[in-house]
């Protein structure tokens, strides 16, 4: 009997709590459709690794498969980079190339990354862990994984759960913040959109140029930016449709499957259930709030200098948060709710893809400024 049920005796309340957390993640993924491709594998993984003496993770001399995957794909930052090829292949930078000034809002909306890094320092995290927590505000899972792994942060599991949960909660987090800092008049500002065509040469040269600029100014960001832009070059070159489709679908899906369940290896009860996890969740939420605040307030400041008729709807600043394409959809819907003839989708999408680049640059900037 001892041989059969002995393992049951090692059941611990902490493990059960982790099963519940795993169950909640699976529930949110399936019932609420919140980032299901990541939250579901993470939720299932959280249960898998929190069984007493789970064979999925290393126990003594027996190497667990999730640890093998972790060492092979996350500890060396390989999975997030490969995922970036897929993301780059999915993104159409067209709206941004038509109005390149929209990139600046992406920069403003990285405020949450750096502000929360400082706050995390105040709360007693060391600078490397604080930087990893701040990058939750990049609203970009692969960048958050890359940075936290670069700094070998012990909080990777909590950072991932926060990053992906809040990305899924953008429709709930952003609107109240935007309403609190804008007037009805500002939210109903119309922006003219003139659909101009972007030449094929521009679309092809753009990823190469961004890689060169980012690589020269922020060399540590070059892996992140380079893989994102490589994916985009596959998409835009016009002669590698098959590779582009593979990157967008097969590669991105495969990596997503492994990424989610492998991250769960960092969700073992002993590491995860501590006050720091709650603090990281709170700081992650603040990062998204600061991002939204930064983008919107920056647009309001720009408006001071713009003549009547050329003013920017400050809501589009919030799309610089990255979280593509959810943020641009949220802002577009908000604009239509305020005024049924106010179509901001293209401008919002331009800022949103700019935010994608800015979040990667912000991650690279952190790596440049803080020693490992």
């Amino acid at each position: 009997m001892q041989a059969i049920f002995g393992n049951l005796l090692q059941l611990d309340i902490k493990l059960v709590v982790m099963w519940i957390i795993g169950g909640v993640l699976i529930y949110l993924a399936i019932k609420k459709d919140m980032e299901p491709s990541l939250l579901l594998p993470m939720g299932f993984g959280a249960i898998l690794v929190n069984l007493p003496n789970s064979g999925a993770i290393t126990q003594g001399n027996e190497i667990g498969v999730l640890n093998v995957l972790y060492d092979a794909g996350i500890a060396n930052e390989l999975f997030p980079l490969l995922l970036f090829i897929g993301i780059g292949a999915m993104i159409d930078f067209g709206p941004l190339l038509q109005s390149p000034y929209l990139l600046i809002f992406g920069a403003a909306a990285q405020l949450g990354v750096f502000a929360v890094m400082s706050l995390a320092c105040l709360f007693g995290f060391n600078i490397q862990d604080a930087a990893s927590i701040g990058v939750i505000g990049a609203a970009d899972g692969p960048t958050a994984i890359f940075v936290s792994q670069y700094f070998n942060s012990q909080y990777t599991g909590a950072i991932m759960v926060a990053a992906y949960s809040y990305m899924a909660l953008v429709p709930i987090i952003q609107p109240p913040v935007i309403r609190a800092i804008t007037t009805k008049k500002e939210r109903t500002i119309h922006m003219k959109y003139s659909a101009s065509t972007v030449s094929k040469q521009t679309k092809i040269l753009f990823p190469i140029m961004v890689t060169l600029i980012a690589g020269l100014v922020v060399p540590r960001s070059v892996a992140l930016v380079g893989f994102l832009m490589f994916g985009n070059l596959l998409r835009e070159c016009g002669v590698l449709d098959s590779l582009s489709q593979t990157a967008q679908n097969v590669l991105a899906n495969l990596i997503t499957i492994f990424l989610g369940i492998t991250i769960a290896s960092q969700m073992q009860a002993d590491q995860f259930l501590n006050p720091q996890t709650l603090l990281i969740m709170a700081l992650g939420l603040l990062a998204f709030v600061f991002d939204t605040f930064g983008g919107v307030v920056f647009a309001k400041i720009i408006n001071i200098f713009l003549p009547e008729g050329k003013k920017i709807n400050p809501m589009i600043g919030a799309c610089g948060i990255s979280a593509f394409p959810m943020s641009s959809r949220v802002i577009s819907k908000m604009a239509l709710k305020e005024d049924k003839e106010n179509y901001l989708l293209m401008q919002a999408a331009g800022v949103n893809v700019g935010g994608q680049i800015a979040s990667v640059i912000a991650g690279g900037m952190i790596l440049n400024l803080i020693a490992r």
Partner: protein
Amino acid sequence: MNLPLFLDSLKILVQGMAGVFVVMAVIAVAIGALNKITTNKDK
């Protein structure tokens, strides 16, 4: 609470935000130039 580290990190906050703004501005200018060159070429 670690006030000294917080104060040190404010320097990184300023440098980081300034850095992101500079890189994005350079990319925006470069896209504008690229658009101009390729449009002229098309004409």
